[in-house]
């Protein structure tokens, strides 16, 4: 049990530290790297509470794909140094601060409700959740719930993701003219008769090539 506690504090300290560094580090690329570290340590925490499927999915989806795209965008845009940093030093035109404050107050209130609920309903841990069945893995449990009781919501969320993807493609797609495209079908189905022609070259005159 004591090793469990040590590991818990180890990962949670890393998670909190890297979460702080995400918003305070000046270099945007460093922020993304700290975000990745945060994802990884939260994934480890998931595994420690026994939700190994969720932890692994977090690693695969967020770290393996989403954060790579983040990094991609940040590196391509080359926003290495931020000019206005209100965490350290001077406060310049802080147009983002009101909206940021609004969102953070909202999240803080939500947290207050959740933590308050814990405080006033002390038996929430024992009453609120079904007993964990030690004989089946939590992948099976998740599947049993997701594809039976919540199958409509599951499908619906998939549909929303598909729509979002299609929307993004439609918004960024533009048809360009005068562009050379490679058509494998055309290349492979080309015949000798349509591409090669034998001609007798006359001396000192050559062959006239018409294009």
């Amino acid at each position, binding site marked *: 049990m004591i090793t469990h506690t040590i590991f818990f504090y180890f990962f949670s300290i890393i998670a909190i530290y890297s979460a702080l560094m995400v918003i305070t580090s000046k270099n945007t690329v460093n922020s993304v790297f700290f975000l990745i570290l945060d994802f990884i340590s939260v994934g480890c925490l998931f595994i420690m509470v026994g939700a*190994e499927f969720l932890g692994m999915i977090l690693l695969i989806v967020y770290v*393996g794909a989403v954060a790579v795209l983040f990094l991609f965008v940040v590196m*391509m845009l080359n926003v290495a140094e931020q000019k206005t940093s209100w965490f350290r030093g001077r406060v310049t035109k802080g147009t983002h601060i009101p909206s940021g404050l609004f969102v953070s107050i909202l999240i803080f209130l939500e947290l207050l409700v959740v933590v308050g609920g814990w405080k006033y309903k002390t038996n929430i841990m024992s009453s609120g959740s079904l007993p964990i069945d030690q004989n089946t*893995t939590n*992948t099976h449990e998740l599947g049993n719930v997701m594809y039976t009781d919540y199958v409509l919501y599951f499908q619906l969320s998939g549909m929303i993701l598909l729509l979002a993807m299609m929307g993004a493609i439609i918004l960024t797609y533009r048809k360009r003219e005068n562009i050379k495209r490679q058509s494998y079908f055309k290349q492979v189905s080309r015949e000798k008769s349509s591409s090669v022609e034998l001609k007798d070259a006359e001396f000192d005159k050559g062959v006239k090539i018409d294009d």
Partner: protein
Amino acid sequence: MEYLNILLQEIYKIFFLVIPVLVTVAMIVWLDRRVWASIQKRRGPNVVGPFGLLQSLADALKYIFKEIIIPASANKAIFILAPIVTMTLALAAWAVIPFSESLILSDINVGILYLFAISSLGVYGIIMGGWASNSKYPFLGAIRSAAQMVSYEVSIGIIIINVLLCVGSLNLKDIVNAQQDLWFVFPLFPMFVIFFISALAETNRPPFDLPEAEAELVAGYQTEYSGMMYAMFWLGEYANILLMCAMGSILFLGGWLPPLDIYPFNIVPSFFWMILKILFLFLLFSIVKAIVPRYRYDQLMRLGWKVFLPFSLFYVVLTASFLFYFELLPTKVY
């Protein structure tokens, strides 16, 4: 005291996993070069030791004694971290590979997801190295590599779903044991071919070695690296290739199971079969390297997104419908 004992035991086990993997990687580099050479009618490394077997050790020694150069404009911390990340991840994934029924470092429930997660983290070593070098060619190499690895991960993930439909468990041992009667290469042969090609792309092997295309990008993301740090990238890359071979043999070739469960085959220790299968797949990898020309980048992307992804999705539907119709869906709860 008890914890210390357990800790020491685990370290001991890890040690006896990592050292053989590293030695195998060194030998596999030699094998790769020899196969490559003999296909091109050259001799390959044949001077150091018998048949040049010690060539990799000589190379490693040379790398250790070379100077490590860090470019002045590089981001120092990330520059140093990149090869470490590559190599650590490549070795960490070996923890869940079962070499036999009992020869496995950690037998976790979501083994295949762990493997998939670790192999998808591998891209970070490359991106970090390419970006921190603060130079054009490494950066271009890193960008190419990131796009390539993310694209081909998708098709690998869907191929894994195909296998999981037939098994009904994410545990690697269960996956191997489900192939007792029939290896998955036979019913899922098209998936095996796509897995093999995607593994080539995932590990940046030719014909998909665009991140380090010599003619265009010098050496891609490794351009600014030297000495031991370069060697670590190299080791990590080959450890990843071996890992992909191990994954292929577990998913499709029946892991440690002998080809036929009859007398001369089943007295051979089972880890021998596993190693033989890994080596067989690696041989295919190195033959492909020698005989296939490099892809163009848009062709690579087209292959990943427009050919492999729809086809493997179609095959998922096919497998699922087949299993459902003939009532072969795995119902055993592990």
